[in-house]
């Protein structure tokens, strides 16, 4: 036994326990009174403060997306409009199993298998309560497929939204561009507040370039919401005054493009690869901007599938490539009138001076012979005839006399090597070489032989069809330079005021004597007359045409080799080029036509220009393109938005 071992003292224990119990009870009362005091403070002392806060809490602003502006062509035909479409949407917070839901939708072919990873990412990054569009436009069959299984897809529903519709489908797509769903990349550049209610944004072409005009301004509507931001209809019966500010629709665009001309251009290029750009030389209005092959922008607004996109992307004819704006080609002989202008500008040639063309040209002290396209040469030619017969030797010599830096200077004034400033993005500048340019680009000095071939539009010189049409327009306007533009007027959506945009005039090209213009244009007119390289295409034209054909080498020939179109593969054949304007004395239209691997400009490219001229100048429209109606289904009455 341990002396000091304590034994259980029931009485003491009980007393202590009782004391503690009483203490605990009192403490509990005190603490609960503390809470009560706090509640009194919140509910009585600060009641009005919290009552105000709770009011502000439950009314939230919901964005109202503006209607996107429409786009009209020169004749007032709608080329981009908004039509209601059935859209498949998913509200993330209402979907118990997002991956499973997407997988099952893909099995039903309501969404594309390839799109599942992208959609999953979009759903994960977005707000839980905000609907994510899965498919932008459902067909009637899709709707039927989904409707019978709707109960299997909680949180997925069909809503009617305004979708973009391009009635002329693939026509003029390289000018119009398209809209598509806003990507994570887009979100970096835009005002998120303005786009909080919008599903679509211009991706390319005018839709992108005029995005700000077309989009308009978001409105808002006060809605009764719960904390997840979801709209609720009732709050236990308490009526609440809710305010709405309507969105301001985007401005409508009016284009210089005439879809009838556009149709002729695209028909003319059908089955080929090429571009047509037609410009009104008095304003810079682009009448036609065609790049073929084309593609249907409606595919993008409806949410293009990965496989459809891959098909377009991997097509060997590159339909997505905008040849008119971004294709840089050696302009070939089409630069000859411009070279003549350069010579006149610097006073190095006399239009009447005759030069003997023997079919070959050599630089002093060099054995290398630059051949003329015509074996044996053209004999004695003056400037006009040199243009008319496209005499290479004449221009070899002219280029050599001018030197590359003067050629560069003069040609830059005509827009070569510079962006034309057309009001749509993505334009390429091409190359107008100079000694300095070669030094910065290749760290090499310029060789005189390189100047010689620039004289016939080969070598380093490249230009886009837009630049060629622009240069032709400058010549047509006798030196006046209007910046090419697709949009000629805007219409305010609210006031319906149509506001024409003033043409933008750039510094003109000046010649010492304005009559010198006529000597060059005379030469170009001879191109379209009997004996000229484009004569067959313009036989019987009741208006005066100034033109120039061109053929650009894709495949370089070795010294002494002969070009044999039949022997080389189609894609290595020469590009056919053609520039023209009419009527030559008072031009209303200037054009550039490019047919890739088309062979000779006179035979492959000129006929397209003829048809466009006849249509534009004489009103001879053989075929008028028909706008197509959007796929049937939704009507405006079905719209799930306030307008």
């Amino acid at each position, binding site marked *: 036994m341990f002396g000091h071992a304590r034994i259980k003292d029931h009485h003491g224990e009980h007393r202590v326990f009782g004391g503690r119990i009483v203490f*605990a009870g009192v403490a509990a009362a005190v603490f609960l009174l503390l*809470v009560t005091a706090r509640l009194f403070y919140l*509910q009585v002392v600060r009641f009005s403060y919290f009552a105000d806060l709770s009011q502000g809490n439950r009314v939230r602003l919901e964005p109202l997306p503006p209607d996107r502006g429409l786009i009209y062509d020169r004749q007032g035909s709608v080329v981009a409009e908004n039509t209601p479409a059935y859209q498949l949407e998913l509200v993330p917070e209402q979907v118990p199993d997002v991956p499973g839901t997407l997988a099952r939708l893909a099995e039903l072919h309501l969404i594309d298998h390839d799109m599942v990873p992208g959609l999953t990412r979009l759903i994960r990054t977005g707000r839980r309560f905000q609907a994510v569009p899965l498919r932008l436009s459902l067909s009637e069959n899709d709707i039927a497929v989904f409707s019978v299984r709707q109960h299997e897809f909680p949180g997925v529903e069909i809503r009617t939204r305004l979708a973009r519709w391009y009635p002329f489908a693939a026509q003029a797509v390289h000018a119009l561009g398209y809209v598509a769903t806003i990507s994570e990349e887009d979100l970096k550049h835009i005002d998120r507040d303005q786009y909080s209610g919008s599903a679509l944004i211009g991706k390319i072409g005018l839709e992108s370039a005029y995005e700000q005009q077309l989009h308009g301004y978001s409105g808002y509507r006060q809605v009764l919401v719960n904390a997840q931001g979801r709209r609720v209809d009732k709050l236990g019966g308490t009526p609440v005054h809710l305010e709405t500010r309507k969105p301001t629709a985007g401005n409508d665009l009016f284009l210089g493009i005439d879809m009838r001309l556009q149709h002729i251009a695209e028909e003319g290029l059908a089955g080929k690869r090429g571009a047509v750009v037609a410009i009104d030389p008095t304003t810079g209005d682009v009448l036609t901007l065609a790049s073929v092959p084309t593609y249907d922008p409606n595919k993008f607004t409806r949410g293009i599938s990965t496989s459809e996109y891959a098909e377009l992307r991997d097509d060997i004819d590159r339909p997505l490539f905008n040849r008119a704006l971004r294709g840089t080609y050696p302009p070939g002989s089409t630069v000859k009138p411009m070279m003549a202008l350069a010579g006149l500008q610097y006073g190095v040639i006399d239009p009447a001076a005759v030069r003997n063309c023997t079919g070959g040209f050599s630089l002093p002290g060099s054995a290398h012979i630059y051949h003329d396209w015509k074996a044996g040469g053209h004999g004695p030619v003056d400037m006009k005839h040199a243009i008319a017969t496209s005499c290479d030797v004449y221009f070899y010599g002219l280029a050599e006399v001018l030197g590359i830096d003067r050629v560069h200077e003069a040609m830059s004034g005509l827009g070569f090597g510079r962006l034309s400033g057309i009001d749509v993005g993505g334009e390429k500048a091409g190359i107008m070489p100079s000694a300095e340019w070669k030094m910065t680009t290749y760290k090499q000095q310029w060789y005189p032989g390189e100047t010689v071939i620039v004289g016939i539009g080969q070598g380093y010189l490249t230009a886009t069809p837009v630049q060629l049409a622009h240069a032709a327009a400058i010549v047509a306007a006798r030196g006046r330079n209007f910046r090419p533009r697709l949009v000629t007027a805007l219409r305010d959506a609210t006031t319906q005021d149509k506001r024409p945009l003033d043409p933008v005039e750039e510094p003109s090209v000046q010649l010492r004597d304005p009559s010198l213009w006529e000597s060059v244009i005379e030469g170009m007119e001879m191109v379209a007359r009997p004996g000229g390289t484009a004569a067959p295409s313009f036989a019987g034209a009741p208006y005066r045409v100034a033109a120039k054909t061109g053929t650009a080498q894709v495949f370089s020939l070795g010294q002494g080799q002969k070009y044999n179109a039949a022997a080389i593969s189609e894609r290595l054949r020469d590009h056919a080029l053609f520039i023209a304007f009419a009527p030559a004395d008072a031009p209303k239209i200037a054009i550039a036509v490019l047919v890739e691997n088309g062979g000779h400009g006179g035979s492959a490219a000129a006929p397209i220009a003829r048809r466009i001229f006849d249509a534009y100048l004489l009103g001879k429209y053989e075929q008028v393109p028909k706008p197509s109606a959007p796929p049937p289904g939704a009507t405006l009455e079905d719209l799930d938005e306030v307008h």
Partner: protein
Amino acid sequence: MYELSHEAQEIEGAPRKRISAQASLVRRLHMDGPLLSLLGGVIAFGLFILYSATGENLAQWLSQVSRLGLALLAMVFLAQVPPGWLRRASPILYGTGLLLLLLVAIHGSASNGAQRWLDLKLFRFQPSEIMKLAVPMMCAWYLHGRPLPPSLRDTGVVLGIILLPAALIAKQPDLGTALLVGSAGILVLFLAGLSNIIITLGLVAVGAIVPVGWHFMHDYQRQRVMMFLDPAQDPLGAGYHSIQSQIAIGSGGLFGKGWMHGSQAQLEFLPERSTDFIFAVIGEELGLLGQLLLISLYFAVIARSLYLAAGAQTTYARLVCGSFALTFFVYAFVNTGMVSGILPVVGVPLPLVSYGGTAMVTLLASFGILMSLYGHRRLVGS
């Protein structure tokens, strides 16, 4: 024995005095009538507000009713278990609980970023809930035969019994439950007569541990503490719960906006409105008066339980009953305190009111044990 309460005499004399059949049934089932009615009051109040707090979700409400039925069955069942069995079962329960906690720590399925649940295929099970009962029972079991107030050595052992599971639970991390489990054990020590000196020293030590504990806290736990100190600093993030619940309560005023008319709760600004923050729904819809009614009911339950604890016969019974009574108080105080913004937000439900079955079963089980320990008194020495 010397201290026999009036009720005990009444039980003895009940059949002869022809107390109503209902009351006699209650007593034959070893239940305490007043406590049972008070609990019934709290539960009825809870179901009333829960219907509104779930947004008139009848399915949820009915599932709560069915859980409640299960919890009541557990209570009635436990009330029948002889106190001696309960005492002897204490170490087994504690050991099993500890084992399961370790299992959770290794295998538990993560839910809400925290490992709390053990997936038993048939149902998911939260071993930390067992510990809310097992820890105080184990502490009382250990102290039962020993002289009280506990010696320093016994105090150390009991602290070990408490801290081991509490640490495992805190690590899950579930600060709310760790707090409840820890406090349940500490309360046993307190009731056992732990000297005031040790209590003071302990409080000082806790004060010193706070900075150390801060270091070991999970980010979201720190966030909650920081947010408690300044809720306005992150109104849509960590402070959201606190701000929204205070708006809800404050805008309720004296009489409330009316049942099912609380804009904060009905429009779901109030987070976890049917679970941890249901007290704010009461404040918003039923006002200060509604909250006072519930707090009064809680106090009555606590007072009655303490009264029963004081009347229990064995050391084990007294300690367990007292601890359970005070744990119920801790629940009520911590939850109402956090919802009204005087305590940091910790995951403690409003007892017998919050939606959710686990806490409901544990709480009613503790009252079942409490009634068993009180109701099976041997009337020796009267």
